């Protein structure tokens, strides 16, 4: 197509010239009519020879460019494919890692054993509930003890009072026995036996007094012990444990937040794992998609083959025509056509290659500035687009 258009372009303003395709056809056709000699001007033949030369070179240059392009695409595609594969592997690795984290996130290692978070929370809440139940039981028992010791203290006070009562009674008994002794001695011989009895009562009274003393000292010790115990127990019962009980509320809330947060992390990580896995499979599809290069390569090769056949045909026709021509007649450089053709190349590297093929190897003069020193060094990168 571009061949056709370029050609026609070069003939703008020269509509008197015959259609080149028709001319080529008449030259190439082997028919009885071909044997017939036709009058052809030297100018037309010279022009035709010039075109033929340039066209052949152009076709060769195009074949060369097609091969280059195919190679470039192949190299780039292979590189891209390998990078994409690498990317797919990394995405898969990441997905595995995230899945690993997801499986760990919901549990905690305790003594080398993995305990699920919710089970752990329930366990701790049960532990705290037991602790509080113990506090309640202790408080109740402590208060029972306080009440018991309150009673014991009262009883002991009663006992102290009773011992004091015994003392009073004993003093009276002693006093009575003394009086009886005095009265007995007054009675003389008749009171002698009574004096003995009175004496015995005094002994008894002394013994009772001594017993009361012993009891008092023991009871005093008991009272002291009970009072101390009571004081200690009051201190224990008076230690308020309600703040520790209410700490359960805070612990419960903390646990709840912890579980919520863990669940949130887990769901986010699960999403991340899915995304990584999706990425990996998308990249796999991209690598498969890169196989378009194979098809492109085959197509370019087929085009190149067609161009080679065309080029060979052209070469043959050119040679056959040359044989028929006088040696003095040379092909004329189709300057307008060349200008049109070279004006289309925007890539200076490609332009240079065409110029080398068409101009340097041919006879045309350099009127396109492509061999300027600047133009030659301009595109070391090879891909720059030159706007001119």
């Amino acid at each position, binding site marked *: 197509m571009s061949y056709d258009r370029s050609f026609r372009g070069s003939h703008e303003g020269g509509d008197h010239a015959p259609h080149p395709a028709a001319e080529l056809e008449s030259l190439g056709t082997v028919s009885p009519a071909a044997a017939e000699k036709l009058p052809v001007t030297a100018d037309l033949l010279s022009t035709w020879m010039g075109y033929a030369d340039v066209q052949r070179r152009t076709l060769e240059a195009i074949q060369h460019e097609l091969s280059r392009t195919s190679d470039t695409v192949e190299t780039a595609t292979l590189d891209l494919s390998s990078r994409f594969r690498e990317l797919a592997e990394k995405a898969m690795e990441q997905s595995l890692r995230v899945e690993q984290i997801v499986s760990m996130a919901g549990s905690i290692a305790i003594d080398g054993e993995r305990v699920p978070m919710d089970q752990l929370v329930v366990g701790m809440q049960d532990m705290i509930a037991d602790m*509080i139940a113990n506090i*309640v039981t202790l*408080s109740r028992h402590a208060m*029972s003890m306080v*009440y018991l010791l*309150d009673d014991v203290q009262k009883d002991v006070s009663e006992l102290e009072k009773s011992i004091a009562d015994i003392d009073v009674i004993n003093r009276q008994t002693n006093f009575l026995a003394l009086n009886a002794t005095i009265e007995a001695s007054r009675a003389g011989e008749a009171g002698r036996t009574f004096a003995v009895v009175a004496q015995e009562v005094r002994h008894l009274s002394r013994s009772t007094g001594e017993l009361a003393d012993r009891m008092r000292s023991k009871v005093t010790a008991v009272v002291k012990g009970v009072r101390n115990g009571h004081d200690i127990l*009051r201190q224990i019962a008076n230690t308020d444990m309600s703040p520790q009980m*209410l700490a*359960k509320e805070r612990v419960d809330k903390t646990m709840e937040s912890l579980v919520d947060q863990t669940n949130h992390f887990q769901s986010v990580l699960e999403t991340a794992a899915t995304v990584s896995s999706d990425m990996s499979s998308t990249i796999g599809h991209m690598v498969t998609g890169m196989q378009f290069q194979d098809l492109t390569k085959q197509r370019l090769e087929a085009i190149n083959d067609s161009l080679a056949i065309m080029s060979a045909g052209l070469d043959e026709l050119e040679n056959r025509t040359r044989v028929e021509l006088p040696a003095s007649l040379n092909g004329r450089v189709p300057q307008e056509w060349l200008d049109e053709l070279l004006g289309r190349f925007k890539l200076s590297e490609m332009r240079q290659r065409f110029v080398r093929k068409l101009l340097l190897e041919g006879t045309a003069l350099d009127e396109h500035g492509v061999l300027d020193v600047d133009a030659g060094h301009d595109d070391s990168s090879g891909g720059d687009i030159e706007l001119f």
Partner: protein
Amino acid sequence: MDYGIEDKDQETVVRLRGRLTFNDHAKLRALIREMLQTKAKRQVLDLSALEFVDSAGIGMLLIAREEMSNVDKLLILRAAAGQVKRVLTVAQLNKIVAIED
């Protein structure tokens, strides 16, 4: 802490006010004795005006329940609020004593 007793046919309602702590143990014992004297089977402790209870207070409430139970009476803790309600909840006292809102 102080209290007021309202003796009705169906139930005896004792309204506790202020703070129930260890220091009230003698007072609470007297209250238990008074409650034992009443005829109603349902003995309600109205806790709506009680601001605070310590662990000894919880122990005393349990003793009250026991004493009532011994004479076939039912102790009910009613309308606890604030700290008192929170402590009753964390102590799971509802497993031992009847609790009403």
